[in-house]
């Protein structure tokens, strides 16, 4: 495992450098945004004196790079700092939000990933026949509708008309696990519909790619059932592109669901981030941005390692 170990540690080091670059980029980005925290806090009711008082108290008069390094220093000691806007500690706040986001993403993933792969296998098995076309058409339609549209339509039917699931997905500590699952039913369905098509299409395409290989023909000639050939022989050999698409969609479930959070009033990271971006609350935006970037880097790392492991030519570069 010598070369593999070297490769992986290289990737991890690169990932850390990347995160550092991300933090600078986000900081510079929030600096570029028009307006500042003081103005955003007071909104339309800002008087010049009140503005000046807030700016002084929050240290907004210090140069940008000083504020950046103060933040970075705190972070290295495990302190995410306090939110400028309401003076609360960021750590526990984000922890709660991140927990909610991961709960929603994990529930959606547990349903969507196996379903997508299963539908992909079925589509290959009945290639170019009606099940394949039905699955492709339906998943394409679901991916091409704006999320907020799917969300509102589900609310209309499931919450307003039939009253099966609640339209407000707010979860809190005193709820039992089952109550929580019931609360997030609608957003989970929306997210599943949104990520299903991409993963399913990739599974189908990747397996079809392998299906032309000689060993598949051998397996078929051995008289194995069509489904067994696909599941046992073709699928394992097409795992790398599938893992890639799965990880990219997992990342999406964690970082890209702000619209779903807004519609279903779900207290996740996306809403939290957007609230603080519009208030120019830089420490919180930084912390959220870093967490998102970490999720992305880690998932990407996994995808890359799987890709390398599954392709011998890449495992032993010339």
């Amino acid at each position, binding site marked *: 495992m010598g070369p593999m170990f070297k490769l992986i540690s290289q990737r991890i080091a690169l990932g850390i450098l990347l995160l550092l670059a991300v933090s600078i980029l986000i900081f510079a980005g929030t600096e570029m945004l028009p307006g500042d925290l003081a103005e955003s806090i007071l909104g339309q009711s800002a008087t010049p004196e009140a503005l000046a008082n807030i700016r002084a108290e929050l240290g907004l008069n210090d140069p940008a790079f000083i504020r950046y390094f103060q933040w970075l220093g705190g972070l290295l000691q495990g302190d995410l700092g306090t939110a400028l806007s309401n003076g609360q500690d960021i750590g526990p706040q984000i922890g709660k939000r991140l927990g909610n986001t991961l709960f929603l993403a994990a529930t959606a993933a547990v349903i969507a990933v196996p379903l997508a792969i299963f539908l992909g296998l079925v589509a290959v098995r009945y290639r170019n026949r009606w099940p394949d076309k039905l699955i492709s058409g339906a998943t394409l339609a679901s991916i091409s509708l704006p999320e907020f549209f799917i969300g509102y339509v589900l609310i209309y039917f499931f919450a307003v008309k039939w009253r099966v699931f609640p*339209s407000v997905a707010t979860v809190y500590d005193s709820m039992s696990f089952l109550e929580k699952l019931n609360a997030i039913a609608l957003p989970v369905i929306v997210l599943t519909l949104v990520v299903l098509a991409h993963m399913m299409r990739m599974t189908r395409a990747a397996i079809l790619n392998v299906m032309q290989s000689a060993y598949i023909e051998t397996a078929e000639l051995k008289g194995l059932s069509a489904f067994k050939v696909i599941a046992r022989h073709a699928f394992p050999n097409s795992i790398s592109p599938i893992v890639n698409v799965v990880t990219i969609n997992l990342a999406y479930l964690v970082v890209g669901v702000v619209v779903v959070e807004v519609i279903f*009033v779900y207290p996740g990271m996306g809403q939290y981030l957007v609230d603080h971006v519009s208030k120019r609350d830089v420490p919180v935006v930084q912390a959220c941005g870093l967490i998102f970037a970490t999720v992305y880097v880690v998932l990407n790392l996994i995808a890359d390692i799987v890709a390398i492991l599954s392709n011998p030519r890449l495992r032993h570069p010339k």
Partner: protein
Amino acid sequence: MSNELKYLSERAARGLLNRRSFMGRAAALGATTTFASTMLASAVMAAGPVKGGTLRVGIQGGSSTDSLDPGLSTNATSLQILRMWGEPLLELAEDGGIDPRLASEYEASADAKTWTFKMRSGVTYSNGKSVTAEDVKATIERHAGEESKSGALGLLRGIVSMSTDGDRFILELDTPNADLPYLLADYHLVIQPNGGKDDPTAAIGSGPYILKSHEPGVRHVFEKNPNYWNDDLGHAETVELLVINDDTARVAALQSGQVHMVNRVPPKVASLVGRMGGVKVHSTPSAGHYVFIMHADTAPFDNKDLRLALKYAINREEMVDKILFGNGTAGNDSPINASYPLFSEREQRTYDPEKAAFHFKASGHDGSVLLRTSDNSFPGAPDAAQLFQQSAGAAGITLDIKREPNDGYWSEVWNKQPFCTSYWGGRPTQDAMFSTAYLSSADWNDTRFFNEGFDKMLLAARAELDEGKRKAIYSDMSTIVSDEGGLICPMFNNFIDAVSEGVEGWRTTKGFDLMNNYAPLKMWVTA
């Protein structure tokens, strides 16, 4: 029959009979549905509030950045939170007058410069300490101080000195102000122990409820304060505020029975919500107005003819129809409407493409005029801008519309760009409205209106104690703003709240939406 019906309605009002069975039995007795529900409603009011239960409110405006500091409370949710745990010295009454709260009585000196407030006795904070006149002094000091970040800072100018004398709080002003009680009824000014100087975000006050769970931008839970002094406020045992910022989601939550009441129903769907069973929509006139504001000192809007051309080029009735869907009234290019105690009618300006074209020509301006807008300047602002574009086009005036991002609109566009859409929530008195935005020295003079005569009239009206004379001065001031100013005010919006039939006790109230945010405190749960 009527006796039996009356008996049944009383049982229903006490919650011993559910609404559906009452209506069924009433029908069996030959009563029409309308008659039966009127009967039930009056029985419910007569039976008085039902104590206990959990009341859920779906509310717009909260954000995860919200602070519990009363001075920093600016949105509808933080205001609602203050109403739950805190109390001001005085409060706006339902009819627009002043009710005493923590002050049991108050009086002014003959020149309206010195005001004395007597504290209600025996009132305690939720931590058990007594509310004192010293706390009031400290609260006002904190909001009005040099270091203050409070949204109420602008209201509290002109205080010369404050002192206490036992249970009395005495305040002296540099100029007479007959409207001082209205200023002290401002929602920021809830009385905190030692004025909140120790910990402004502690949420310890003397209000009807105690804050139990606080997740900013998500959910706030309150429990009844067992020692609260006033039996008219706080009927439910528990009140839950759910922050639901998306309009469609908020209405859906009410439709699906997850909350008992919501604020800010989009006007577009108000009639649709009203048609659903089990929900009542309350459309309450307010002093809030949706406006287009020009900087009267910036080219091309420094030309009075151009300002008049634009004022004649807007179709006010169409705006009320298509933007407010009838939930509001036409404006008359002044910030004052019938919601104000000293309002008087003036001649209504109407859409007149010919006059608009005439003034436009007289202004000598050629080319187009750029109007900036965004969804959060007021609901439907981009649509209103497009209607304006159409009606102005008919008068030969080309309006270009630029939609600005919601994010940063109030800091980057409003009060900075010369022509944009905006919103004013109104103030309890004409004096407050004019001093806030039309006085030459006002902080938020967002139309850049500088008129010496107008400024003098404002000060004269403030010191005037004869109501008739005051009314006349205010009417003239509205005419000046309307003819000379940079304000195009096409409409005053109603507050549109919706309440499910599971709660009772709605009363039309001036101030903010949801009965000046007293609906969760004055209404009670029946089912």
